[in-house]
């Protein structure tokens, strides 16, 4: 594994999170375009991130909780404030 590969691997998760500077993004991207083994690792880690999101997004709030929040949002400000 070359120096470039190691540098890219170190920055990979931050790159996937879109938190690198523009200059760093360009250098990581250039390396990934050029280096199929690193690109495969990138593809896999990016898919793992999507997987976590996808699996966790299946739990929606129960209807009664949603209704409760809607009522709270519709409430006149004064009533709750006195209570608090």
């Amino acid at each position, binding site marked *: 594994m070359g120096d470039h590969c190691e540098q890219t691997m170190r920055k990979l998760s931050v790159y996937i999170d879109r938190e690198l500077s523009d200059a760093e993004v360009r250098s990581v991207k250039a390396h990934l375009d050029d280096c199929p083994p690193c690109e495969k690792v990138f593809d896999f880690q990016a898919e793992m991130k999507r997987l976590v999101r996808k699996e966790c997004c299946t739990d929606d709030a129960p209807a009664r909780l949603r209704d409760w929040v809607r009522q709270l949002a519709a*409430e006149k400000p004064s009533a709750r404030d006195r209570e608090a």
Partner: protein
Amino acid sequence: MDSDFSLFERHVDALYRSALRLTRKPEDAEDLVQETYLRAYRYRNRFKPGTNEKAWLFTIMTNVFRNRLRQRPAPTEPLDQPGTDFSIYDQLRREGMPVHLMSPEEIIVERGFGDEVKRALEELPLPMRMVVVLVDVEDFSYKEVASILGIKIGTVMSRLHRGRQALQKKLWEYSGRPKARPVAVGAH
């Protein structure tokens, strides 16, 4: 002036699914979200219109959650643990799986890594679990997560790094267990 509280309503699913990952119990998650909204309602005038209301709600929720945990610690919470250098991809490559010929989706389906993501996440120690949920599920930036949890960006990054490795390690361990397989029809 009052900010329009209905602006906060749309985040109920996000708050609930994250509350579920934190508390691991539907009743507790629902209760946590209710208290979060009650506080948000009470302090709604402190919210600056035009700023990120989702981050504001999550700040309230993580504070409420941490206070509760302090008052009655959950006996089954996993303890924080040092990082382990672990990656499923490297592990498969070491095993000789032809990962370079497969798409990530194929690898994940083939080994069933997707089956127990929620359980694996819920078994992570809380500091890591919170960061992974906020970044990977809720799509907050490192800076937003640092502000929500009141920690440094460097801490966000190191917890995230350790959290993801620990998560992959758990998924790896689960997938290694023998699974009940459907019996092949017509095989003699």
